[in-house]
């Protein structure tokens, strides 16, 4: 299986996905429209990795601008598991032992779904703890670089390297460094299971959730069911913001400055239209259409502004939940596998899966996928997530 769209060093141990800039290496974020774009600088996360002595293996496939389920819309082609079903290239590369860790940008949950499908770990940290400098932007208000590894220790190792204040990112939080632990005692922890998300998942996922809950109880944690009655509205709000911000951010790919330019045009309008029509895939176009619509004069208040208000409500709701619980447990996606499908359905399929992954992107809290299930914690609760995942992984061995 070819996990990499760009090889950097065959001896490297860390991969980064193709939305993360590495100076001097073509970066396309899975899109034809960025053909030939070679960045002049590396992302802050990559700079920190290199400074810490890590070596980069290469850049993994990503879906066009990271907007799909697990990377199937990549201009470079899909990544398939041995059984022919889909997963993300980064998660598969980690699962196959090609790399120890992989950095992926999580904007709509794709890296979390990939980790669940390939049976590895992925942690999306608290918004503002890892710099977003040097990633191809889509939805800036919720995207964050996260770490994929085969276990919690592996995640912790790289997360400790890439997190910390960066003056080049105006939303970067002030702490210079974060200390993470993966071995806090989980006995006595209270974990909330989200009823609406459990109910919305398929039987195979429910079974995995049940097994995980049982193991948590055995380790001395309490698992209690809670309700997030507005979780569907949260997902819709994030879909609106995700498309709006993406539409705005990818408008700069116009064939004028860099990337793909159409060979046929008469004037500037045709240069724009033809370059974008030929250079962008179906899912990117769907997001542009949807995003333009929700930002239009007549729809702004009822769509985008309302989403901003829903974001605040969601944050308040999650604060309330974490006042009584250490972590939240829920599925990472509706099913346990994804078969190949007609890519014209990507936008709708991805929108449906946002139900499971939105809250962390919308409210900035950390999320982790481990053993095929998903955990959330309050802001800066990464150590809680790593400790639960670590304890469960150790007990499985």
């Amino acid at each position, binding site marked *: 299986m070819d996990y990499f769209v760009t090889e950097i060093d065959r001896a490297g141990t860390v991969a980064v996905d193709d939305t993360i800039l590495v100076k001097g290496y073509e970066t396309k974020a899975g899109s034809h429209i960025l053909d030939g774009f070679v960045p002049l600088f590396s992302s802050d996360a990559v700079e920190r990795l290199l400074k810490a002595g890590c070596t980069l293996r290469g850049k993994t496939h990503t879906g066009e601008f990271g907007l799909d389920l697990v990377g199937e819309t990549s201009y470079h082609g899909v990544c398939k598991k041995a059984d022919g079903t889909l997963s993300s290239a980064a998660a598969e590369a980690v699962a196959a032992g090609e790399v120890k860790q992989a950095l992926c940008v999580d904007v709509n949950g794709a890296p979390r779904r990939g980790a669940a499908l390939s049976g590895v770990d992925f942690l999306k940290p608290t918004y503002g703890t890892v710099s977003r400098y040097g*990633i*191809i932007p889509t939805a800036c208000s919720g995207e964050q670089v996260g770490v994929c590894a085969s276990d919690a220790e592996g995640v912790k190792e790289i997360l400790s390297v890439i997190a910390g204040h960066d003056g080049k990112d105006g939303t970067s939080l002030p702490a210079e460094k974060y200390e993470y632990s993966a071995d806090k005692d989980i006995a006595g922890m209270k974990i909330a299971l989200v009823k609406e998300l459990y109910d919305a998942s398929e039987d195979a996922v429910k079974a995995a959730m049940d097994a995980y809950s049982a193991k948590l109880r055995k380790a001395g944690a309490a698992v209690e069911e809670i309700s997030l009655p507005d979780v569907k509205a949260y997902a819709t709000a994030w879909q609106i913001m995700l498309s709006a911000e993406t539409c705005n951010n990818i408008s700069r790919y116009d064939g004028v400055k860099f990337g793909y330019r159409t060979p046929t045009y008469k004037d500037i309008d045709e240069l724009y239209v033809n370059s974008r029509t030929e250079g962008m895939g179906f899912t990117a176009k769907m997001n542009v259409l949807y995003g333009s619509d929700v930002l239009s004069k007549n729809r702004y208040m009822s769509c985008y502004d309302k989403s901003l208000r829903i974001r605040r409500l969601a944050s308040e709701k999650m604060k309330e939940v974490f006042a009584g619980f250490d972590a939240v447990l829920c599925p990472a996606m509706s099913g346990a596998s994804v078969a190949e499908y007609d890519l014209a359905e990507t936008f709708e399929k991805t929108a449906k899966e946002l139900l499971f992954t939105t809250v962390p992107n919308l409210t900035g809290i950390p999320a982790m996928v481990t053993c095929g299930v998903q955990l959330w914690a309050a802001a800066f609760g990464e150590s809680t997530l790593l400790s639960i995942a670590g304890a469960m992984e150790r007990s499985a061995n």
Partner: protein
Amino acid sequence: MKYEVVIGLETHVELSTKSKIFCACGGHSEANEPNDCVCPACCGMPGMLPVTNRHAVELAVQAGIMLNCKINQYATFDKKSYYYPDLPCAYQITQWFHPICTEGYVDVPTKSGTSRIGIKQIHMEEDAGKLVHDDWADVTYVDFNRTSVPLIEIVSKPDFRSAEEVLNYLDKLKSMLRFGGISECEEGAMRCDVNISIRPEGTEELGVRSEIKNMSSLASIERAIKYEVARHTDALERHTETLVQETRRWDDMKNRTFAMRNKETAADYRYFPDPNLMPVVVDDAWLAEIKNSMHATIEEKTAEFTGMGLSAQDIASLVSERKLCDIFDAVVASGRKPTDTAAWILTDCAGILRRGGKVIGELDIAPEALSYIIGMVDEGKINRGVGKKVLSAVIEKGVSPEQYIKEQALDAKVDESLILETVRNVLTENTKAVADYLGGKEKALQSLFGGCMKVLRGKGDPAVIRELLVKEIEKLR
């Protein structure tokens, strides 16, 4: 019927910051070539994030204070989307939802007294780039030097009732902002959109409005207003056309306005808050700091200079240029007399600049250097003529006055016997001038004096030279 004209202005002014508003690039004024002052951020490369320039915020707040505005302690930056090749990200960062200043006013002098013009708001935004069309090759190039240069847009209320008020308002804004160090307001760096309508005198309801975009010359603004008033009046009185609310462009050559294509003006800019920029929160401490760092206004400086005994004319000259005030203040602060200092700046420096074809506004001298020269003259170490010579060298060649005086040995004490010898030589060599003087032409003495000064290369106390000269020439009677 008599009509009343109603005008509102949107004025764009470039802020005098060292760097651009969201990246570390220097201002475009440092650029020699297109795309000299650019970086990945202001070229719109993906992955770069904007970081707000605090100084730009401070200057915008100061402008608000000068225009008596309410300073909003919570302001946001918002994205305005449209496609144009000079806009690298296809969006401009501006302040749409929460501008930094609102609700102010400025008093504008008019023939009949003063008019108070309301300010609706002042918001910050980034400038766009520039397109350069090469007609020969039929290619258009993009220059991003101006991209992301910080601007403020000062939006007035529709309070102007004449072109005169508009022009005086712009004049006043320009001198206030220049003097306050907010903006250089260089030629063309102040651009206006003029909103204009007319209504029957005595009525309240606003008429159909035309917006004339992107005006930078005062003369054109005046002509454009006259043209629009006439066009609107004709439309209402003689039904020459049906007025519609539209954006128009002024054509300086044809001396008229033209409606712009609908496509250029009917855009939906899809504004939304920029998630990459935290809201600007001007807390009380920062606001106090900004207020403290403000430069005095023209009115305050005028009062201060009057108290120092400067003439009205000298004051007017000094306050015409913030830089002159700053040099003057520093020289006076170093212990020189105010009236003397004003004379050195406004007579001597101005004269030297004029000789080089420059105006006093272009004066570029370190206050320490000027103070040093004045001090040397005051202490009698060099005479005033030599002082002027040193000043010329400092202004024209950029030399250090101390070093220059030493190198040229200008402060060397001239022996009285050397002066006497020189005077005698000059008298023997200029028999005609001597005869003229003795014959009653007093003026001839001046040429002999000049001759002595020339030989002595400006050294020596002129009073001593003159005294000896008269004594010696009288001996010849």
